[in-house]
């Protein structure tokens, strides 16, 4: 859903009682809106008695938190060593060629965001990827092409 101030406040209220609540709140916001809107930063800071700079520092430190909405689907390709040993670098080139975007970019039609990931724990099923919450192992050109097709179709 589109960013909403009231819903943001509600999420903050639901989580602020937790010890070290910043990460749970930011995760919940990203789960709801797909990203952490910059307008949410002072709200989180206010609730947790932190400075805006501190909250911004947390958002920007972690690879997971986005400051802009992603595409409809997020395709994460593992770039770590176990996947490299099974040809992940070539598959990454294929993905970028087919989608005509680079890492962390979204296709112009807004369907797919491509992200690198360093290890999905599928090192015995390499090369591995994750499309939204679905894990895919033993990737090859054919399976990757099918996966990209799936992401582009809906």
């Amino acid at each position, binding site marked *: 859903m589109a960013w909403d101030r009231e819903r943001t406040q509600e999420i903050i209220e639901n989580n602020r009682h937790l010890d070290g609540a910043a*990460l749970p709140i930011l995760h919940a916001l990203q789960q709801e809106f797909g990203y952490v809107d910059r307008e949410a930063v002072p709200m989180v800071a206010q609730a947790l008695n932190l400075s805006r700079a501190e909250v911004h520092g947390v958002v920007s430190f972690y*690879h997971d938190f986005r400051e802009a909405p992603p595409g409809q689907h997020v395709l994460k390709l593992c770039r770590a060593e176990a996947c490299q*040993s099974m040809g992940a670098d070539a598959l990454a080139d294929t993905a970028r060629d087919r989608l005509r975007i680079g890492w962390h970019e979204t296709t112009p039609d807004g369907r797919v965001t491509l992200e690198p990931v360093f*290890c999905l724990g599928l090192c015995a099923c390499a090369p591995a990827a994750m499309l939204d919450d679905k894990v895919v192992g033993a990737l090859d050109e054919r399976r990757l092409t099918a996966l990209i097709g799936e992401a582009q179709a809906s």
Partner: protein
Amino acid sequence: MSKPRIYIPWDAGALSLGSSAVERAIIAAERRLGIDVEIIRTGSRGLFWLEPMIEVETAGGRVAYGPVTLEDVERLFAMGWLDGRLDRLCLGKPEDIPFLKRQTRYTFARCGIVDRLSFADYRAHGGVRGLAHALSLGPAGIFDEVTKSGLRGRGGAGFPTGIKWKTTADAQAAQKYIVCNADEGDSGTYADRMLMEGDPFCLIEGMAIAGIAVGATKGFIYIRSEYPHAIRTMGRAINIARAENLLGRGIAGSTYDFDIELRVGAGAYVCGEETALLDSLEGKRGQVRAKPPLPAHKGAFGRPTVVNNVISLASVPAILADGADFYRDLGYGRSRGTMPIQLAGNVKHRGLFEAAFGLTLGEIVDDIGGGTATGRPVRAVQVGGPLGAYFPRALFDTPFDYEAFAAKNGLIGHGGVVVFDDTVDMARQARFAMEFCAIESCGKCTPCRIGSTRGVEVIDRIVRGERRAQNLTLLQELCETMRFGSLCALGGFVPFPVTSAINHFPEDFGGAPLVAAAE
């Protein structure tokens, strides 16, 4: 007669190879054939080259089939797999498969066998015995057992678990914590993930025992966000454990209280370092803290805290249940007990192999792993994740042991073994190690933050052939600075893959370093 049972792994690895689609096909087939089958979702046995590996309960015990694809399901029903009939995919009794038969499944005794979320199944397979014994021993007795077992931290550092617990126990505070480090970020490792997805109650029991030992009433499990399946399974298991009184007030009928909260990381590799993890848990940037103070004195939220890896904690119930002597009698040198070795990457038999310490690297890669998946010669093996050294065949006689690997300028880390064939370019791997460090550095100390970026640049110059001898010397000096000047293992250990690549595979850097120096 009871319903026929089919066991399907819901481990992320098995799912990534299609186990849930196979399950749907099995359900469709049984409806069409009018058979009533009970489907039990387990973790994985860890034989990933055979996943999805489906097991069927027969009169003669469980029979495994794999790798099962969608197209096989119809045929398997038609030829009568529910009676354990032979098929080209039939693997026989799972425990007789050589890869499993040669293992000492101790920490992973239940993984892939039990319904991962059935507490009754957990109990029936030996669960909660460790906690019962721990309660009868009391804190002092628990330290004795854990110390006597020789258990060392399985996260990578290998620090004696008993000493860590004792230090926390001796610290005076109104609140103490048990923090489980489930931020398993090393490429090539997946033991924590498998355990959390296949035997989550075992981790909960281990944390409860740790809580009793040190006087902590609260635990946190910090799981990396890249593990959505482990997060879901652990979350459900914690709720079940509360309902079963394994967590909560007066656990297992005792006077001890203990509960667990699940926390999710946010994609920062450095949060696998214990002090960065603690800062992250507190809601801050995951930056490394200088030690002292030790987490045992001043850990989460400034309180005395035990930070242990998943496998360390999950080994505790069995140690308490079967006795420290059994565990201590397994192993090699000062590395006691078993280690889940994770064979990964370009290896034929990809999977988790739990064994006593002491196997040589050659036995692990060639005999157990069966060489590469591509069938080409093995050229290099990275042991211990992205901060571990690359080993050439010449060092395949190194025994799998903390000290033996340290003596060869390597580390066993969390037990990941990534195999590369002869197409690997070791200069590229060395460059990647520095690049990864630059991406993941927390930024707190200069050698890691700046050194990693300079490292990438210097390797690029060497590869381009620019003043190769001088730049190789510069790179070695940079590695020295990072090794001794970094605050934590990220910057401190990244020289391991870099220098091992240069020393063991000089030809990939444009000639032997000594020859290059004489240019």
